[in-house]
């Protein structure tokens, strides 16, 4: 008998009588930009409202003029990143500007599917991360977010703020392994 059969047989003989699966309601809640902003800033992110998607460039010029290597398909970039980009090049990226799809006001998280990432490693290896988000795509909570999400694709991540750790004496440090800062441009 294979381990697969052994495990499945053992479950079949040990599991309790079938119980019903509850329905998960789509809870209502405050899906405002204000709440999204308050929560995300509370966990170390920054939120800037811009008039239109085209104005993202001006915001990047204003806030990140000191950063050299930029990867993006939304604003001007000088590092070309695609699926085949090597680790050595990815390591040099200072700023990645990527499209986010759904924002969640209750926890400040943003859905980023693989297709928007240019390369799966980019949102994590970049020193600083900017996500661009349509204000009409902000929902109140995770029930509404998963309801809006038709499928998760091959790979996708909810990202909430910059990389952080509190593993040394519970002292919060921003910039553990991933992005040292995270900004959301809402249009």
């Amino acid at each position, binding site marked *: 008998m294979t381990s697969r059969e052994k495990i499945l047989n053992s479950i079949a003989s*040990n599991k309790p009588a079938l119980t019903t699966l509850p329905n*998960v309601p789509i809870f209502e809640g405050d899906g405002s930009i204000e709440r999204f902003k308050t929560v995300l800033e509370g966990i170390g992110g920054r939120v800037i409202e811009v008039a239109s998607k085209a104005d993202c460039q001006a915001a990047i010029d204003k806030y990140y003029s000191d950063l050299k290597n930029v990867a993006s398909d939304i604003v001007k970039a000088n590092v070309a990143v695609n699926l085949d980009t090597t680790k050595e090049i990815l390591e040099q990226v200072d700023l990645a500007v990527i499209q986010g799809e759904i924002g969640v006001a209750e926890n400040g998280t943003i859905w980023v599917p693989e297709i928007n990432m240019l390369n799966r490693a980019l949102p*994590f290896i970049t020193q600083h991360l900017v996500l661009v988000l349509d204000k009409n795509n902000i929902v109140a909570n*995770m029930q509404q977010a*998963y309801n809006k999400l038709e499928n998760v694709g091959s790979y996708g991540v909810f990202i909430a703020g910059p990389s952080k750790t509190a593993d*040394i004496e519970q*002292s919060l440090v921003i910039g553990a392994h*991933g992005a040292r800062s995270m900004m959301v441009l809402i249009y």
Partner: protein
Amino acid sequence: MNHQNHPELAEAFNKDFERTTWHDETLWFVRQKRDKAVYPIPEFQDLRTLASEIKDHTLSNLDNYLIEFEQNAIKNGVKVHWAADAAEHNQIVMDIIKSSCKVEGRNTRMVKSKSMLTEECHLNAFLQKNNIDVVDTDLGERIIQFRDEPPSHIVMPAIHLKKEDVGETFHEHLGTTKGEKDPQILTEAARQHLREKFVAADVALTGVNFAIAETGSFVVCTNEGNADLGVNLAKVHIASMGIEKMIPKLHHLSVYTRLLARSATGQPITTYTSHFTKPAEGKEMHIVIVDNGRTQQLGRADFRNSLKCIRCGACMNTCPVYRRSGGHSYDFTVPGPIGAILSPNIDLHKYSSLPFASTLCGSCSDVCPVKIDIHVQLYKWRQIVGQANELPAAKKWGMKGLAKVLSMPKVYDLGGKLARGALRVLPHGLTHNQSMNPWAKARELPDAPKQSFKEWYEENRK
């Protein structure tokens, strides 16, 4: 060496009074953060009920969900492996590395993000014996890996250490300045050190927080981004999961993602909630599904719902015994109240003291996001430990003696009278002798009353 039980290890931890107090307060602070994060969610209690019922249902149909998950994962191009126990899990991981990560003239390099299952299987030691360089990349895990210690908490693995300890460890292993203890500077040193490891890795291993039957996907939650950084740079991704990580549908994640981080650290959500479904072009993804005692626990009607645990650690942060005895005093992969109900299933003899590491106050059950009746199970394990003759002699004979006395009212009355008299006349050094009366170790007995309640009642009832 004899295995030390919880009271012995807890006593050793308590020798450093200041550190014990600090540990207690630090974890209580995390518990308070949890409360602040939970109270503003109006439907939080509804979410707990849903989380509990979804897991109940999943356990009642677990074989079918695992099969559905396997079929979908295979369709996604993921390789699925099954391991009955720890040894088989470790061998599978080794075989994957051998066949998929061939390197010449050096050891294969693995980066790992947090996985309590691989701790349970003692994977690191096994791989290192087989010439695989394993680097734990979660900051807390890296710290304890340098120190060759097990984690003392499932979410905060190095919570037993102070920044001075970490500074000393990093000075030794990463060459930071001696005496440097600023968490910001120490974290930056670890970032630089681990970035090199991420880029150089051949294979990345992660745990699994949730596995979704409907899509064959699995979800990994981190704050540091170490899981994503590792797997997205390496050629091969291995994910180790216990069979109990299943949930039926994608949208069920909406319940658990609202509960996990709020319960664990008081954050609204973890920084990264990563959904892995298909490997990237040209890369490999493997899932190892592990039993290692879980199906046995599923067969124990009184204890099976311990398998609903989502490993948030809230029960540890709130537990007055855990906070004052430290995670290492449990000497089990998962410490605290949840560990005390999981461990006797694995080895009743070795872990017979753990169900007693509790005041049965019930705070663990109150904060559990999936409503496991932890304190009830602790109480039930005590009965089993007693029946299996695993109680320490003093407790066993003490209980037997007390049961006798309580069943004979005359003897009880006489005993009370003698004790009241004795407490008044005997010297403090004798009544509070710590080897004869361990109760008095940190406590004072109240003054003995002149009469018992029964005597007072007889006198005053008219």
